[in-house]
């Protein structure tokens, strides 16, 4: 995906994330669409690209909210890298595999997010952080993977990238 298109897509996703998606929150938890796009792109393109796209997507999210610049950049960079590393070792053309990778990479990214919050002196009880936010958030995000995976897959194929 050309980088400017990727940035525009992320911008549009972020606006949706702050407005429309709130209506589809379950017990207050909404899926992380930026994470989903980062993880699936990373899964299909590789670890290096995943880390880069994750960092770029996270920085845009941070600039959007205007504070703690770098918080989402680092966590999504880790998620993108892990998804890419998994994609290099696993069979890519399989939705359950993609969804499982999306869950694990999202959970890893949210764990990094939690650790960075501690670094910023924002304490959240680990019990709440994992059972009320990280695990449900990662699961909800991964549940959406089947709906977007093939679109990204076909787009990347269409662009003639090697998989």
């Amino acid at each position, binding site marked *: 995906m050309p980088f400017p298109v990727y940035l525009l897509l992320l911008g549009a996703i972020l*606006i949706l994330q702050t407005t429309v998606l709130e209506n589809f929150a379950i017990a*207050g938890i909404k899926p992380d669409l930026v994470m989903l796009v980062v993880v699936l792109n990373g899964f299909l393109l590789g670890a290096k690209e995943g880390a880069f796209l994750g960092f770029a997507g996270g920085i845009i999210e941070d600039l959007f909210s*205007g504070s*703690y610049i770098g918080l*989402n950049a680092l966590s999504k960079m880790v998620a993108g890298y892990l998804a890419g590393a998994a994609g290099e070792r696993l069979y890519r053309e399989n939705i359950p595999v993609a969804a499982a990778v999306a869950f694990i990479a999202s959970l890893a990214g949210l764990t990094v997010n939690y650790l960075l919050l501690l*670094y910023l002196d924002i304490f959240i009880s680990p019990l709440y952080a994992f059972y009320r936010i990280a695990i449900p958030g990662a699961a909800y995000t991964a549940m959406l993977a089947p709906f977007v995976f093939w679109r990204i897959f076909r787009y990347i194929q269409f662009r003639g990238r090697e998989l």
Partner: protein
Amino acid sequence: MRWATAKRLLFLAVLVAVTLAAMRFTIPERTGRISLELKFRDVLAPVQTGLTWLGRQGSYLVSLPVSMVGAAARSQALEQEVERLESEKIQFNEYLLENQRLTALLDYKQVMINNYNFQIASVIGRDPGNWFGTLTLNRGSSEGVMENMAVLTPDGLVGRVITVSSSASEVLLITDPRSGVGSLIQDNRTTGIVEGVAGSAGIARMIHIPNNALVETGQAVVTSGQGSIFPKGIPVGIINNIQNEPSGLFLSADIIPYANLNKLEEVLIVTYVQPVAETPRVGG
């Protein structure tokens, strides 16, 4: 180690270090907001307003098929009900008017009307993630909104304004882990601090309650007025679950906020508090 790998690792280390420093540098309480970001929010506010409306319509459409299950069977029965309900409607309107008058007589409502000035605002955006709990409102400094003004609904406290641009403002919810509200238990006047647990979980926690206090599930918690941001006596939530704090000196209790913070559409910003003896001025 190969030179290329070493270079890559060095680049990664520098990137992480710079990002960690940037994170610290951009803590909102320390630096304030970047003016560019405030301008960006002003530009984005109308877009967010439209999309929020669209989202609510979309949510309705998605839930519509579920509500349509068995609709045909219900339809006939409902038609018969309609005639009967039409005649009862007039009677219920009377009850409604009576209810409104009685509501207006409630002490709290009276205090609100007499002592506060409000600005009604619509929620046009929320924090993109699940960790923090913030709202974007469609009212800004041009409508007289200022930082640290309390935000509430008729049900209870919502939070406080943390940043303001000319046409929008950002509210820190009481469930955000960065939030702290001086509060007291209404029954026994025991004080404590209500702090957020996690933005999206919809739960706050009252901490530093003396362990000899008579705390029970279901007791109401209201703002104490100490700390000068929140006016005194605004309902915060009800006590749900009581635990001992690790120090053993205090208790803590989960608080379920009165206001449904996950489903807010309109809120009231307290723009002015009447300077009476026991109610401090907002932001003072």
